[in-house]
């Protein structure tokens, strides 16, 4: 599955947003747009990223820049995979 597809599923299952996950496009804002995404939920999403993509995310990388939009989170994950 593509990074987008896997990420969409992580957000769907972690935030319990159902079909809303299908409408996430690269320019869809995450923080401030998904009310489910507060600091507790973000940490669960990060745990999901680490598990599903086999990456390690450091505490100082969990910031507003990575979680700004769906596209920025895809880029963040792809950057960690390189």
């Amino acid at each position, binding site marked *: 599955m593509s990074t987008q597809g896997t990420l969409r599923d992580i957000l769907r299952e972690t935030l319990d947003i159902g079909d809303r996950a299908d409408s996430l496009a690269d320019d869809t804002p995450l923080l*401030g747009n998904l009310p489910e995404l507060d600091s507790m939920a973000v940490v*669960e999403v990060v745990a999901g990223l680490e598990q599903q993509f086999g990456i390690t995310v450091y505490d100082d990388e969990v910031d507003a820049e990575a979680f700004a939009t769906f596209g920025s989170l895809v880029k963040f994950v792809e950057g960690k995979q390189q």
Partner: protein
Amino acid sequence: MLIAPPLAEEMNRSRTLIASLARDLAGVGFETLLPDLTGTGDSSGLLENQRWQHWLDDMSFMASWAATHCSLPLSVLGIRMGGLLAANLATETPIDSLILWHTPADGSTWLEHTKRQQLATKGRALGGKSPPGYRFHPALETDIAAQKLGSQKLATEKVLLIDRDTAQSAAYEEVRQVWQDISSVCQTLVVSTPPYWALEKPVICNPLITETKLFLTGNVP
């Protein structure tokens, strides 16, 4: 059934699900006890003064109370870190069965996870609203970090470990084998649910409630 509750904000976010489970169990004749551990909820004391042993004493007291006031054999459900508290309780207090929901196999993992969340909140790096921070005594943090599932010899014959995905499968399998060898019939189960303890909106996980009810009712003689 006695519940060993999740800690800190995770308890607030799990409350709707726990209430729903308790209502469901009441329908099949089970009483559910949900204590506010000392220093949490409506109980007296300050959270920052609490130690692991205080909460273990709370759970022992509740188990004794249940033994004299409730008719069915006592089962204990530990949720998240409450699962490690429940496993500790079950080493010294004989109980009919032990159920663990989404309990970290290693307490230090939970502590790191919680600290990461607090960092994200403190730095306001993520903006928006955030749950309040909770202050633990350093000695409590040391105790939490030292908790490991599987290190206990349980005084119960039946154990069910439920997780929401396979992230801890290897660790759970190790725990299952240890408990199976030294004390109990132990099953593990993955039930797909959202991480209800981390979501602000109330989440009712019906498959989780169903599996728990099946396990409990299957155990009634």
